[in-house]
Every structure is written in C-alpha cells, then in structure tokens.
C-alpha cells in the first residue's frame, strides 16, 4: 500500500527540523521509507520537490546549503522556525478561537485552525469560551467565488494575472490583465482592487463576474502598490451610496420604509401621501421603480424622466 502523503511530509519535516547539519537529497531518500519506495530517480525527485514546496506552504523555512563537494544539503534551522514567545490570557485566547472559526473557505479555514493549533502548542489557554456561554454571535466570512483562492495567492505573491471579466451590463466577458493588490469582502461579496494593465488605471473587480480560470502571468508588477487600497469607497459609489444631490418624491403613507429611513426630510401631505427628500445617487431610478405606483418622482426632471422611461418599458413588456 502506498504510504500516505501526510506521513511522508511529517517524516521529511522531522528530519529537516531534527538535523544540525544540512542533509543531502541522498541521505533524505535513504532515511524516509516513502522515498525508498518511490522507484525511479525521476519520480523521487518530483516527489521531493513537491514535498519541500508543501512544507514551505505550511510555514517551514527550509534552507538550501551547498557543501564543499558541491552537493546540495537541506535543513530547517530551529532559530528560523521557532515561534517567538507569545503569551495570551484566557480572554484573548477565546477571542482568537472565535476568529479562527469564521472562514468558510477551505484553505483559509485550514490555515486559521493551523495557526490556532501552533499557538495551542505554544501554550494558548484552553477551555474558556465566553462566547460559547450563550453562543449568540456567529460571524462567518462567505467565500462562494471560485476566483477567490487563485487571486488570494496572486495578491500574496504579487503575481500578475489574467482573467475573463464580464462587466455588469456587457454581454460577453473580455480578458483583463491585472496586477492584483488586495481583496475585500463587503456585504458578503468579494472584490479585487488592482492595476488594470489594459486600461492603464486602478480598477475594482467583482469576483462573481469573473468567468473561467484565473491564470498567472510571468514577470513582476510594473506599477508600485499603493499603501492604502480603497475598495469599499469604489463599491459604495457603484451601489449609489455616494449621493451628491437630492431628489423629491411623493410616497404612499404606509409604503417604502427603506426610502423613509434614508430620507433627510419627510412632510405629511394628509391625503394618504407623504413628501420626502432623499439622497440621489447612481441607481436611484431603478430602486424607485421597484415601489411601483406607491412612488411618484417630483424632481429633478432628469430622475423623473428616467423613472418614467423604466416604467414604460415594463408597461409595454
């Protein structure tokens, strides 16, 4: 039976951590049973390279040292792999315990548990869970977008990418070449901010509009990454949340609670209608139309025309 990969990785990790001098590939091959069974040199070499990458992925710093004979040796020095001293009290431990549970994405959920386990091994206090007492709070970070993981890795490693992106109102996706800076989750959706090479400008992309695979490009970033990347502001303006004007509408008295909660002024007209002043940003016309005959736009004329136009389209439908 083939030896499980976790057993092989564990043995390699323990060998590299346990040695004080660099071990050659040959020495490692002779020490680890799974490598003895690997068969040809080729398949051993491939396996060994992959295993080293996997161990680096989980945080092991593996040094490559050339010895006098020109052989390459490997070791994981204790001082570069040791967790610095960290002391957390019971409340801090409980708070981190809650935070480690919020990811719904497999890779990050695994990484967060891994971090907590390392801290546990370093003496993180157990068994106190003030949240568990009544279990009221369950924050979760949703990640449904397939593009998330490759983009997260590309942001981490600062690798340019290309993906097919369909703009909100476009029929067909088109390829976009992007230097990815940061990902942000807002209102349950993920967005990418980065440098759009095709447009020569900073852009924000919504991950759910990326179709197909995110592919890595070779080479480095060509534009410096800004210190502060503002995704939220851009998305808020798409969502019509940055209004610079105001509109006047009539609203039936028992209707349109969300419009009321945004209103800057409300006047009862006494005939079963109220007059409201509300912020006028991008997308207000589409929103007002949702309320059908319960809303009448008084002004500005441009908004009134947009709403009438939309209503006509539905009436004809």
């Amino acid at each position, binding site marked *: 039976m083939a030896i499980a990969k976790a057993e092989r990785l564990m043995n390699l990790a323990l060998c590299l951590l346990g040695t004080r001098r660099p071990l050659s590939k040959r020495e490692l091959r002779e020490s680890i*049973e799974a490598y003895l069974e690997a068969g040809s040199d080729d398949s051993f070499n491939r396996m060994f390279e992959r295993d080293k990458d996997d161990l680096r992925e989980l945080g092991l710093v593996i040094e490559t040292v050339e010895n006098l004979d020109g052989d390459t040796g490997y070791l994981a020095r204790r001082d570069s792999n040791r967790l610095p001293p960290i002391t957390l009290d019971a409340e801090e431990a409980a708070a981190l315990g809650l935070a480690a549970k919020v990811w719904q994405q497999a890779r990050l959920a695994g990484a*967060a548990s891994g971090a907590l386990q390392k801290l546990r091994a370093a003496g993180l206090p157990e068994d106190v869970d003030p949240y568990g007492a009544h279990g*009221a709070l369950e924050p979760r970070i949703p990640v449904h977008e397939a593009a998330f993981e490759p983009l997260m890795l590309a942001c981490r490693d600062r690798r340019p990418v290309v993906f097919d992106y369909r703009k909100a109102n476009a*029929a067909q996706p088109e390829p976009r070449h992007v230097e990815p800076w940061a990902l942000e989750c807002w209102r349950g959706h993920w967005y990418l901010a980065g440098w759009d090479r095709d447009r020569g400008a900073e852009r924000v992309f919504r991950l759910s509009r990326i179709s197909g695979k995110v592919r890595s490009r070779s080479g480095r970033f060509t534009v410096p990454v800004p210190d502060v990347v503002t995704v939220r502001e851009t998305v808020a303006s798409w969502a019509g949340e940055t209004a610079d004007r105001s509109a006047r509408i009539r609203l039936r008295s028992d209707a349109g609670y969300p419009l009321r909660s945004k209103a800057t002024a409300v006047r009862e007209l006494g005939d079963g209608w109220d007059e409201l002043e509300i912020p006028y940003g991008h997308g207000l016309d589409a929103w007002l139309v949702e309320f*059908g005959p319960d809303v009448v736009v008084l002004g500005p004329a441009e908004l009134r025309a947009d709403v009438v136009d939309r209503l006509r389209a539905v009436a004809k439908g």
Partner: protein
Amino acid sequence: MAGKPVRPVNAIDQTRRMLSLVTYLRERPGARIEDVARAFGITEDELVSDLDVLPMCGTSFRGGDLLDIDTDGERIWWHNPAALGAEAAEPLRLAADEATALLVAARAVATLPGLRESDRQALLRATAKVETAAGEAAGASSRLSVTFESEGGVFADVDRAIAERRRLWIRYYSPARDEVTEREIDPIRLVSVGHTYVEAWCRRSEARRTFRLDRVAEIRVMDEPSAPPEMELRDLSEALVQPAAEDPEVVVEVAPGGRWVAEYYPHDSADELPDGGLRITLRTPDPASLRRLALRLGRDGRIVEPSELADSARQAAREALAAYDGAEAAG
C-alpha cells in the same frame, strides 16, 4: 453552534496539525483524547487518524527512533518523548497564510458593532500579539480585508436579549411585501454573513425565521422570557434562505444588463441566451414578492412565468405611469 463543516483530508493541514500535536503532547503525558480534540478544534476521529500516522514518523535519519505514541482509546501516551530532540519539539512559527487567515478574521470580528467592549479589547490585544509573533508573515494579511455590516443599536439589543433570554418586540420591514409588521420573536443566535441576521422563533408565524438587522425598523427588549422551542440549529454555511423544492417556479429572461439577477437570487438554473442574456429559473414560496424585481429590471428583463406575475408588474407600471400623466396634465 452550527455543525463543524466536513473537511476533506488534506495532507498539508494534517501535517501542520501533527507537527503542533507532537509539541503539545510532549508537555502533556496521558492527555485525554476528548480534551486534545477540543483544543485542536478537530473531531476525535480526526485525532485518532493522526495518532495512527505518528508512530510511522520520526527523525529517522540513520536509525533514529520512530515516535512511540499510542492510545488506549481514552488517553494518549508517548513512551519515548526523547526521540524528538528537545529542539525539534518547539512550537513552529506561523506561515504567511496562517497569519493572514487568523489576523484578517480577527480584524473583521473586531469591527462587529455590538461585540462586547471587553471582548473587543481582548481581541485587539490578541491581534497585536499575534502580529508581533508572526513577524514578516503578518505582512501579507493587509492584502485581504472583510467588513461585517450590521446596525449597532439593534445588534446590541439582540445580543442582550439572547444573553438574558428575553423576548424581543420588533417592527420589521419585509421587502417582498413592502410593508413593516410588528412581531414578537424569541431570538436564538446572531449570524453574520455579509449582512448580520438574527435567527429567531417568530411567535406571529409560529416558525423559525431569519431577520436581517438592517431591516429592523424598531426594537425593544421585553420583560417576558424568551422560550423558543427546542430545535436543531441548521448549518448556515451555504445560504440563509434555501428555497424548498415544492415552491412555485419563476422563469425570468434577462438581457446582458440584467445578468446581476443570477448573482443575487439563488436559482435552479441560468441558461445562456444568444443575445448574451440569461434565462433564469428560480423558486420562491411567494412569487408575488418578485414583482419588485420585474419592475426594477425595466428593459433589461421580463418575467416569463408565471403569467400572473408578469401581468401584475405590467399593471403596477401602468398605474404608476398614470400618476405622471395626471401630474403633467395638471401642470
């Protein structure tokens, strides 16, 4: 608490866990399986599968010993802790992904309004300590961020009601009907998935309901004790609103400009149309609630089925237009 998501066996996660496990077990001879599984946030089965692998591992270079770790099903014994040099058993530094996953989540949770102040302070202290301990590995965590949305005042009242087991009176806005209704609810838990929701037993509908906090128009913690019936908590990791198979079907055809519908509405299918649009089939217990959608879509889409829904949207648009004709004639 919701059930633990089922994790596929991942060799990297398991290796990382076993490395921490040896450090942990070394300090705790005779540790109980139950306690260790809880400390590591894994099931007892997962722990036992680790304990099956560990005796095959060791610093086996040039005949070193394998780890002699075994269990009687209740406690874990390690008979040769010296097999691993003192140094090889030290806790390992955090990987970049580990630091990112923990720090981003911690910062996000710290932004939750209504989090008890003492808990927020504890979280901020812990975050700072982890940042320091992670060193360079913490750097990449600035490339991810998460903001939870929730209404601070409402959140605090719901949180208090849950802690004190009290009933809540709310005025709640339902977009489907564009109406605000009064309800008494027995809150069970708060869930943040993008927006923040309270899951509760609704005494008006005598059913379990999920309320989005930003749709709560008014809230009051009542004197009556909360008494939700015993029920199994659902795993909310997929979607908060799961349409039922018996719900009526609605078919919407949208132009390219209406493709967002497929992003916002859980649906059974979305088939590409030749013009770049989509034909979307979804289910809802209350098709009339989709009249808003039909109105919003305008020329970007139309309801194909049921025809009553399409008719009611057309009718609503005509009524709305009448107000403008009237105003224009009058003005």
